[in-house]
């Protein structure tokens, strides 16, 4: 069974639909997500997004052939909770993954559940050997999330940008397939 069939703890993954524009618009414009929305190149990560922007984002996600971005939804209400992305455009040997959860839905285990789907897809359905994740040094919840999910910090590139009047670093994490397998065995990760 493919990992996309995740239905656990009231969460399911599905493809984005044009009708998701309003819900996506709402959570992408949550001020708490500014700078960590993981948008396609060319879309502003630090400014309010218009409905037109969001339509463009959905269109880009749907056209990409070497990545997927899926919607995480609440199975009972159908509400959009966030999105998860797996990207192997550079090299299927070393793809990357990211997760964005609407701020009101955070700290419920949704991020870890959908990340597990991305990792299962990459490690079980592709030749991926190692998966990376990238985040800003000011994004402490994301750093804690990566550590909690078995990733190791690979280092920090200074001057990733400016935030709150100071430079921040770009932080890289990685997870080897062997580590993922061991963790899966230990934690019974889906």
């Amino acid at each position, binding site marked *: 069974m493919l990992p996309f069939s995740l239905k656990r703890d009231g969460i399911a993954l599905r493809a984005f639909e044009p009708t998701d524009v309003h819900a996506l618009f709402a959570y992408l414009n949550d001020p708490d997500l500014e700078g960590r929305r993981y948008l396609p190149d060319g879309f502003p990560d630090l400014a309010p997004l218009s409905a037109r922007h969001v339509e463009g984002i959905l269109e880009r996600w749907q056209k990409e052939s070497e990545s997927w971005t899926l919607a995480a939804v609440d199975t009972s209400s159908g509400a959009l909770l966030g999105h998860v992305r797996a990207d192997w455009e550079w*090299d299927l*040997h070393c793809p990357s993954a990211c997760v964005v959860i609407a701020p009101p839905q955070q700290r419920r285990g949704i991020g870890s559940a959908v990340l597990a789907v991305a990792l299962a897809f990459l490690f079980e359905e592709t030749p991926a*050997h190692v998966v*990376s994740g990238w985040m800003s040094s000011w994004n402490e919840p994301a750093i804690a999330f990566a550590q909690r999910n078995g990733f190791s910090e690979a280092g*920090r*590139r200074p001057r990733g940008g400016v935030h709150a009047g100071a430079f921040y670093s770009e932080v890289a994490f990685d997870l080897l397939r062997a580590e993922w397998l061991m963790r899966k065995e230990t934690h019974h990760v889906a």
Partner: protein
Amino acid sequence: MSLEGKLVVLREERREDQRLFADLRNDLVTQAWAKTLPPDYTEEMHVKRFEGLEFTYERTSSRLVIVEKTSGQAAGFVSYTGEQHRMSASIGIVVAKDFWGTGAALDAQETLLRFLFEELGLREVHLWTHSGLPKAIDLAGRSGFAVCIRLRESVYKFGGLFDAVIMSLLREDYFARHPDMTDRLPRID
């Protein structure tokens, strides 16, 4: 005007450089790509790419040919890509094996760095390489780059797994290494 170093000048790309570019791309060592490309590049392919270049005032990327001053020969090229205005860029360098050990690569790297920090006002310059290329790591280190990220076993090349290595050079560290130069940009911190 070209960018002038001690041993080399960096100039714009010309049609006659395209044979060299194809040769460099077809050598698995000098192709400078972390995933091997097949050695099937032709001069015609490079000429077509060259002729497709458009006039632009954009400066987010550039490729400059390294010309050794004494011989007048093209030795390879340096490039920068992904320039985030007034912030950062990633550089690359490819030098033909005949010019290894001549100092041309280091001088070309230094000449490009001077342009990036003095003219483009960048705050940081970085480069990607991998642990299977100790010469590349050493060359970067000689200009003051330090390893900042090491992604484990992310590169498969020469029949082995290597770490992807990102090296970084901060603006203030660059100027500290060049006391003859003065940094007139205000600091942000």
